[in-house]
């Protein structure tokens, strides 16, 4: 799926390239006093061979850039939680390669620009202006500093683009809030893109000027010595103020920057538009070989994250707009009469939602355990949100990590919040799709209660999560957070009967080191987690859950009239339980500090920051989903088997009092 889309996006960006090049040539030959000559010269230039060659070279550049876009995209943004994480991200080898290649590409583009601009920029080495003295009869070749300036500016622009890409999370693919045809989306974003390129180019060129002023002599000297050129003493050297205050130089560099940024941004925008377009997944495969591509199968297996996102988006759209496909979802299999499609879809959606519930509960427990200090919420188990790592999270909602989490948080200070968690597995047993997780979870509870025996000091328990947080802080973001808690869980498990004083001595030592280091302000500066960023990191893949909620609730609402076999009714208790539990947990989560404050919004920027407010969208769509179900079913909901606590909440929803 993605391959075809990428090819289409690259083709379109290549088609638009000559248009941009033509505009560049026209604008670079700017001659306000002789407009007719300017226009005719520009049009003549458009057909020359070196322009064609430049266009071909730029196409190669664009293809390379697109390859990098494809390699680096992510549907779940990776949000660095602390400054050290941010620095780590920048130094990461993948990012270094990205920056290096972009710098080289920038240089190539700048070289093309110099060729097309002609004039004084064109060649690296020109013959020096003849000096008056009769000693040097032999003309020497001098360094054309303007050309070098251009090439270096290209490199700098490429590197800045790459840095900006990283910091603004431009590899994140936001899905649009309304569906539109691709052409309309592109046309709508184009003016913004042009404006953004111009403004950004000004900033980058200004920074480059400053950098060249201070460091410009280094490459100059290096090129001169390697290529045996001389510095022309007659002309002003460019790394002085008088050299740099050249308006025409600034204009040409800026124009080159705009050209570069615009072509790269167009490639990126087209990739974004193509990749986030909806894909139609068949619900019921008509041919045997299509079975792998049908919606229930895809949702249940573990596809690459983009495919899963597209599948969920398709589910949301079909549940709202397509009665034919809804019928396929509600249909029974032949023979046997099993509602495979519905079972698969609802199981996947519910497991997604339960996973989110658990994650939020874990974070709330960690926040409660870490306590009263004003320090930002420490996270017990935040996996690095790179595309690779997120895959492991989606395996099942019962993973080793959640074992550890439950163990750590089953301390005496556990609030009754975990009670709904225990009852929902209980009600799940009755439902047709029991997950094998339940047995394991029961096992965890037993081991934990036995563990309570030997090590009962609540002080140790209380300190447990905090220490794990700090130690995982020390390990930074490079290593997996999972490995350490798992290790210690295994260690603790085996040590359950060993004497506890070794354990406490170790903990004390770690505590001392941590206290010592935390007094060093510099280290805390790097290690302290930005609260807003940590909150965003928890909700970074909430888009999946929002779609699952919408799709599920629309299907349930539609089933009131369209479900002929009653396949939805048997799963209604489970659905309601999951939704109500999630709603409670989300409401409680929003009472934590910083969670309900909205980050400031910058409208009209090309950079998409919608991932910052995903949690609000999740809360709103959760409420709407619940209301949708209660509005359609009305009083019939009283006949559904749910726990009394949930019944009370449902009554609130029925009376529109939530």
């Amino acid at each position, binding site marked *: 799926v993605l391959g075809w889309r990428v090819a289409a996006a690259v083709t379109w960006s290549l088609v638009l390239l000559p248009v941009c090049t033509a505009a560049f040539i026209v604008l670079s030959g700017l001659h306000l006093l002789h407009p007719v000559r300017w226009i005719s010269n520009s049009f003549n230039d458009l057909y020359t061979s070196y322009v064609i060659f430049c266009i071909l070279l730029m196409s190669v550049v664009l293809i390379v850039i697109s390859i990098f876009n494809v390699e680096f995209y992510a549907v779940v943004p990776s949000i660095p939680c602390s400054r050290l994480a941010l620095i780590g991200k920048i130094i990461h080898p993948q990012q270094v390669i990205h920056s290096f290649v972009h710098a080289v590409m920038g240089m190539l583009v700048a070289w093309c620009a110099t060729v097309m601009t002609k004039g004084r920029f064109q060649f690296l080495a020109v013959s020096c202006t003849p000096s008056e003295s009769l000693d040097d009869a032999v003309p020497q070749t001098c360094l054309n500093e303007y050309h070098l300036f251009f090439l270096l500016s290209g490199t700098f622009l490429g590197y800045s683009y790459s840095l900006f890409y990283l910091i603004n999370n431009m590899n994140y693919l936001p899905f649009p809030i309304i569906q539109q045809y691709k052409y309309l989306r592109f046309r709508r974003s184009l003016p913004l893109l042009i404006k953004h390129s111009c403004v950004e180019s000004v900033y980058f060129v200004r920074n480059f000027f400053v950098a060249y002023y201070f460091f410009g002599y280094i490459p100059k000297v290096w090129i001169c010595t390697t290529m045996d050129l001389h510095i022309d003493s007659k002309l002003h050297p460019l790394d002085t103020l008088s050299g740099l205050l050249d308006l025409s130089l600034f204009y040409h560099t800026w124009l080159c920057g705009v050209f570069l940024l615009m072509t790269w941004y167009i490639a990126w925008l087209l990739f974004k538009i193509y990749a986030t377009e909806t894909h139609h997944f068949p619900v019921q495969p008509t041919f045997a070989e299509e079975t792998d591509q049908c919606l229930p199968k895809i949702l249940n297996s573990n596809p690459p994250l983009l495919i899963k996102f597209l599948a969920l988006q398709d589910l949301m759209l079909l549940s709202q707009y397509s009665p034919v496909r809804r019928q396929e979802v509600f249909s029974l299999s032949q023979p046997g009469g099993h509602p495979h499609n519905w079972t698969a879809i609802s199981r996947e959606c519910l497991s997604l939602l339960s996973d989110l519930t658990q994650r939020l509960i874990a974070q709330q427990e960690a926040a409660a355990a870490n306590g009263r200090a004003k320090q930002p919420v420490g996270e017990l188990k935040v996996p690095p949100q790179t595309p690779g790592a997120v895959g492991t999270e989606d395996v099942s909602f019962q993973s080793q990590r959640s074992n550890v989490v439950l163990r750590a948080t089953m301390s005496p200070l556990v609030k009754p919040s975990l009670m709904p968690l225990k009852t929902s597995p209980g009600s799940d047993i009755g439902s047709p799709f029991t997950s094998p997780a339940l047995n394991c979870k029961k096992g965890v509870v037993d081991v934990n209660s036995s563990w309570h025996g030997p090590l009962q000091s609540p002080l140790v328990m209380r300190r447990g999560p905090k220490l794990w947080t700090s130690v995982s802080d020390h390990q930074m973001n490079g290593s997996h957070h999972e490995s350490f808690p798992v290790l210690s869980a295994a260690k603790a498990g085996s040590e359950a009967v060993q004497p506890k004083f070794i354990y406490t001595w170790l903990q004390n030592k770690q505590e001392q080191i941590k206290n010592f280091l935390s007094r060093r302000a510099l280290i805390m500066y790097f290690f302290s987690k930005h609260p807003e960023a940590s909150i965003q990191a928890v909700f970074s893949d909430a888009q999946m859950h929002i779609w699952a909620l919408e799709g599920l609730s629309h299907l349930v609402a539609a089933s009131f009239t369209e479900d002929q076999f009653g396949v939805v009714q048997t799963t209604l208790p489970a659905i309601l339980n999951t939704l109500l539990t999630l709603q409670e947990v989300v409401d409680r989560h929003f009472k934590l500090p910083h969670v309900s404050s909205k980050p400031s919004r910058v409208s009209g920027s090309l950079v998409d920051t919608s991932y910052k*407010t995903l949690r609000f969208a999740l809360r709103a769509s959760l409420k709407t989903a619940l209301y949708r179900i209660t509005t359609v079913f009305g009083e019939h909901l009283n006949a559904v088997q749910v726990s009394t606590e949930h019944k009370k909440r449902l009554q609130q929803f029925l009376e529109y009092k939530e």
Partner: protein
Amino acid sequence: AGCPVRAFAWHPHTNKFAVALLDDSIRVYNSNSATVPSLKHRLQRNVASMAWKPLCASILAVACQSCVLVWHLDPTSLSTRPSSGCAQVLSYPGHSPVTSLAWAPSGERLLSASPVDTAMLVWDVSTENCVQLQWFGGGGVTYLAWSPDGSKVLAATPSAVFRVWEAQMWTCERWPTIRGRCQTGCWSPDGSRLLFTVLGESVIYSLSFSEYRGEMQGQVGGSKTASIVADLSETTFETLYGDERIGGEVHSMVWDPTGERLAVIIRGHPDSPGSQTAIAVFRTRNSPVFELLPCGFVRGERAAQPQIIAFHPCFPRGALLTVCWSSGKISHIPFFFVSAHVPLASPHRSPVPVVAS
């Protein structure tokens, strides 16, 4: 002009309504509680329209001079002055004054439009993101109406053109009218018929759309021409009290959510003496054929003109028409009838006919 009530909105699921007054405050009246919260905000000026969010307890969107205010009210609170912290401000440069609002019937998106902006904004309220839907020519939007099944949106412009957008891929159809701008319009409950009127003409037009099946993406599916279904030009009725002249242009029109009653404010000709503004009520049916039969007239006290009319979205025993008069009174007029369709709580789904035995 001169009416103290600026805008009126019924809550889609409960017995609650909001009234916007001339002093830029909004009062929320609830039949279940005696407290009347009064909403005030410094940005709430020149309120033109209000809309409650569907599938929600109490979120009210208010179209103000410079922005759209979304009030998140607590349905169980007893305070009479909710703080202005409950209001979310949605503003976009160049998009003011906002005069029309429409929520999607599935409750997720809010459309806002302004007569000076040639772009409608589709808001995702919780993330405060918006998407601009731009078109060329025709000016801004003077009237917005979303069909109850969620598939189409009517956007009337100040020029002699109105557009019907389909809400899945957001493409639009342009409908030029002959003489004037589209004054008002309303949708049938299943979204298959649009009744609209044109400024300067005293007829009601009907435009039918093909049944929305979900397979035709990107097509609005409107029929080729609109047909005239009712002629409301001035006629004289002989009553016990003498001759009454009623008829003229249509000021506003609303259709009740069961599709059975249509209420129209008819403004008499200002020049001719004795003509008055009255509300005409029609009995309508949309399936199997469209039928429009006159049912009666509603008149208020002497010298009170009807300004705003609205039907209650979920009146269980027929239809409830609310009229805001120019004297500042709000009256509710019930119509008791047995509907031919099963009344459903969510008005945006097509009604299922009851099988007679």
